C-alpha cells in the first residue's frame, strides 16, 4: 500500500515539476527592459481612465496614519476622477533594488502616474523615473529625487507642529509637556522642532520631555503601541500633562497612557479624534497636527488628469492648507484665537519655524 502511495506521490511530484518547467519555458520571452517599454505608455492626459500606480511605505494601507492618508487621497481620486488604481506594499528590511522593481513593475505595466509614498523611495524614484521619461512620478516627503517627470510633494510639518506645541503649552497646567517620536529620523525631528518652538513661544521656560521609540534602521517605532505607551507613561509620571506623538501606529499606545493618567494627548497626520479607530481615546485627544497627504495625492492626480502636473517640489505648508490643527471635540476652543494668531504670523512670515 505504501508502495502505491509513494509512487502516486512521485507521479504527482514529477507532474508538478514538469508543469512548472513548462510554465517556465512559456514565460521566457517576456523580457522587456524599462527603457524601451517606457516609450510605449503614452501619457493619458485625457483625464478619466488613467491607471494610477501607488507604492506604499512599510505599514501600507491600514496603518491609521501616514500611508492611510495617501490611500484616502487615492480613493477620492478613484471615485471623483474615475481613475483606476493599483497599490503595491513594501516589505520590511528591503533594499533599494526591491523598491526600484516595485516602481518599474508599475511603470512597465502601463501605470501612469506612479506615486511613491515616503522618503525611502528617494533613490529608487530618481533612478526609475529616468528609465520611463513618459511616465509621471510623484514622491511624498522627499525633495532629493529630481527630474523632469518627478513631482515632490513636501510638507511643512514643523509649522503644524508649532501650532499644536502652542496649544500644548496653553493647555498645560503643570508647565510640563512631552513629545514621543516614532523613529529617530530627520523627518520626525521636524515635528519635534516645531512643537518645541511653538511651546516656547507661549511659555519660554516650559519643560519639554522628548523621547524616540527606536533608532534607525529599526523602524519598529512606527508600529509598536506598547513602546509608545511605556514612553508616554514615563512622561506623565514625570509630571507632563500633555504629550504630542508623531509615532504612526505607536500613537495608540500614547493615547492609552494618556487615558490611564487622565491627562491629554495630541494626535498626528490625521484628525485622530475623529477616526473611528481611536474612538476610545477621543476624550484625551485635545487636537491633532494634520498633515494632508491625501490632499497632496489627490491634487497631484487631479493635475495629472488635466495635464497640468508640475515637476519639482510643491510645499504643502500652513499657507497652502497642507498642514493644520484640528478642533474636533471642542477641547481647545478657548485658546483657538491665540493659536490662529500664531497661524497668521507663520503664514505672514512673521514667525519662521525651525526644522531641526
Amino acid at each position, binding site marked *: 500500500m505504501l508502495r502505491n502511495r509513494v509512487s502516486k506521490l512521485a507521479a504527482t511530484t514529477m507532474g508538478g515539476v514538469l508543469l512548472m518547467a513548462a510554465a*517556465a519555458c512559456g514565460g521566457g520571452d*517576456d523580457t522587456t527592459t524599462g527603457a524601451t517599454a517606457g516609450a510605449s505608455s503614452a501619457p493619458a492626459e485625457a483625464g478619466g481612465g488613467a491607471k494610477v500606480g501607488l507604492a506604499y511605505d512599510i505599514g501600507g494601507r491600514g496603518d491609521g496614519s501616514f500611508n492611510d492618508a495617501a490611500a484616502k487621497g487615492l480613493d477620492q481620486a478613484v471615485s471623483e476622477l474615475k481613475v483606476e488604481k493599483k497599490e*503595491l*506594499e513594501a516589505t520590511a528590511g528591503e533594499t*533599494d533594488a526591491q523598491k526600484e522593481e516595485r516602481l518599474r513593475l508599475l511603470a512597465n505595466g502601463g501605470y501612469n502616474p506612479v506615486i511613491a509614498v515616503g522618503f*525611502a523611495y528617494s533613490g529608487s524614484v530618481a533612478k526609475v523615473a529616468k528609465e520611463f521619461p513618459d511616465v509621471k512620478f510623484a514622491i511624498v*516627503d*522627499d525633495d532629493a529625487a529630481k527630474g523632469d517627470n518627478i513631482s515632490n510633494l513636501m510638507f511643512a510639518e514643523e509649522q503644524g507642529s508649532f501650532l499644536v506645541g502652542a496649544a500644548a503649552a496653553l493647555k498645560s497646567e503643570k508647565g510640563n509637556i512631552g513629545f514621543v517620536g516614532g523613529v529617530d529620523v530627520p523627518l520626525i525631528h521636524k515635528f519635534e522642532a516645531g512643537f518645541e518652538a511653538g511651546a516656547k513661544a507661549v511659555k519660554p521656560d516650559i519643560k519639554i520631555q522628548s523621547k524616540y521609540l527606536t533608532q534607525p534602521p529599526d523602524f519598529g517605532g512606527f508600529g509598536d503601541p506598547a513602546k509608545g505607551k511605556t514612553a508616554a507613561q514615563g512622561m506623565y509620571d514625570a509630571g507632563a500633562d500633555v504629550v504630542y506623538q508623531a509615532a504612526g501606529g505607536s500613537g495608540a499606545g500614547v493615547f492609552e497612557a494618556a487615558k490611564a493618567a487622565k491627562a491629554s494627548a495630541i494626535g498626528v497626520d490625521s484628525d485622530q479624534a475623529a477616526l473611528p479607530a481611536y474612538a476610545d481615546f477621543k476624550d484625551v485627544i485635545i487636537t491633532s497636527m494634520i498633515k494632508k497627504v491625501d490632499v497632496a495625492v489627490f491634487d497631484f492626480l487631479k493635475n495629472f488628469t488635466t495635464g497640468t502636473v508640475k515637476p519639482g517640489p510643491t510645499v504643502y505648508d500652513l499657507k497652502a492648507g497642507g498642514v493644520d490643527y484640528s478642533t474636533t471635540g471642542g477641547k481647545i476652543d478657548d485658546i483657538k484665537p491665540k493659536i490662529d494668531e500664531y497661524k497668521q504670523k507663520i503664514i505672514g512670515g512673521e514667525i519662521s519655524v525651525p526644522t531641526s
Partner: protein
Amino acid sequence: MSGFLDRMLGRVRLGGWLAVAAPVLAVVFAVLITSVVLLIAGKEPVEAFTTLADYGTQPRSMVMTLNTGVMYYISALAVAVGFRMNLFNIGVDGQYRLAAVVAAAVGGAAVVPGVLNIVLVVVSAVVVGALWAAIAGLLRVYRGVSEVISTIMLNAIATGLGSWLVSEHFGVLTGNDLGTRPIPDDAHMPGIPLIAGTPVLVNGFIVVAVLLGVAYWVVLTRTRFGFELRATGKSESAAVASGVSVKKMIVVTMVMSGAIAGLIGMPELLGASYKYSNNFPTDLGFTGIAIALLGRNSPVGMAIGALLWSFLYNSSNQLQLLDIPKEIVQIMQGVVVLSVIIAYELVHRYRMVAEQRRVGRQLAAPAEPPKAEAAV
C-alpha cells in the same frame, strides 16, 4: 503501522533515493499548504504558481534573485559556522549592521583610491564584525553568559551605536534621509553581466560568496580546525578529553562567524547603495538563521535555500500585481523551513526504525543470511 515500517525496511537500501526524497517531499508539502492558504484567501493557486514561474524565469528577476541571494548566502554561512559547533550566534544581524556603518564611513572618507578603498572597506567590515562577535565569545568563556542572550542584547546595542555614529558623526542629510558620505565612484564593486537579456548586472560579490562557500566546506571538512569544531559541537566532553581547548574554540568560532557576518552588508554597500543610510536593508542576520536551517548547514544546501528564499522575497511585488497579498510570501518561506525540518526528521526516524528492524530480524533468524536486505 508495522506493515508500513516493514516496507520502509525494504527501502532502506535506497538510502540515496530517500536523501533526495526528503527535500522533494518538503517542497511538495510547502506547495500544498500554500495552495490551501491561497484557496482560503480566495485566490487561484495555479495562477499564483504560474506567475511565480513566469517571473522567476525572466532575466531581470533572475539577476535580482541572485543579488539578494548573495547577501542571504553569506549570512547563512556566518550562522552555520556557529551552528556546527552548537554556538547560536543570533547576533549576526547586529554584527553586519555595525560593520556596514563603520565600513561605509571608512569608504566614504576615501583615504585611499580605487581598489585599495574596496579592500579597506571590506577589511574594516570584517574586523568590526569579528570584534563585535568576540564580545559574546569572551562573555561566554570567562563569565559563562549564554551567547544566545548576549548576542540578542548586542543586537540592540549595535542598533543604538550604529544610529548614534550615523547621526552624530558620519551622517549627511539628503532630503529626509540621513546616511554616510557616498563611497566614490572609483571604489564601486563592478557588476558581472552573468545573465543575458537584461541590462541589470549581477553583484560582483557573488564571486566572494562562492569562494566563501568553498572555504567553509574546506575548513570544516578538510582541516584539523574543522574537525575540532565539529567534534566540540557533537560532544564537548569528548572534545576536551581528546585535547581540544573548548574555550579557545568558542572564541575563535564566534570571531569567524562575526567576520563572515561583517561581509553580509558589502554587496549592498559596495555594489548598490554605496552608503549606509536609513534605507539600508535590515534583518538579514535573521534570514540567515532560517536559511542555515533550510540548507541544513551544508554549503550547497544553503546556496539553494538562499536562492529559493530570495526568489520568493523578490516575487512579492509581482504577486501583489495579481492582488495576491504579499504576506503569502512569508507564509511560503515559513512553511518551506518547517517542511524541510519535518521531512528530514521523518526520514531520519524511518531510517532508525528500519535499522532496528533489520538488526532485530537478523538476530531472530540467523539461519537465512543471504537475503538481499542483509546486503545494505
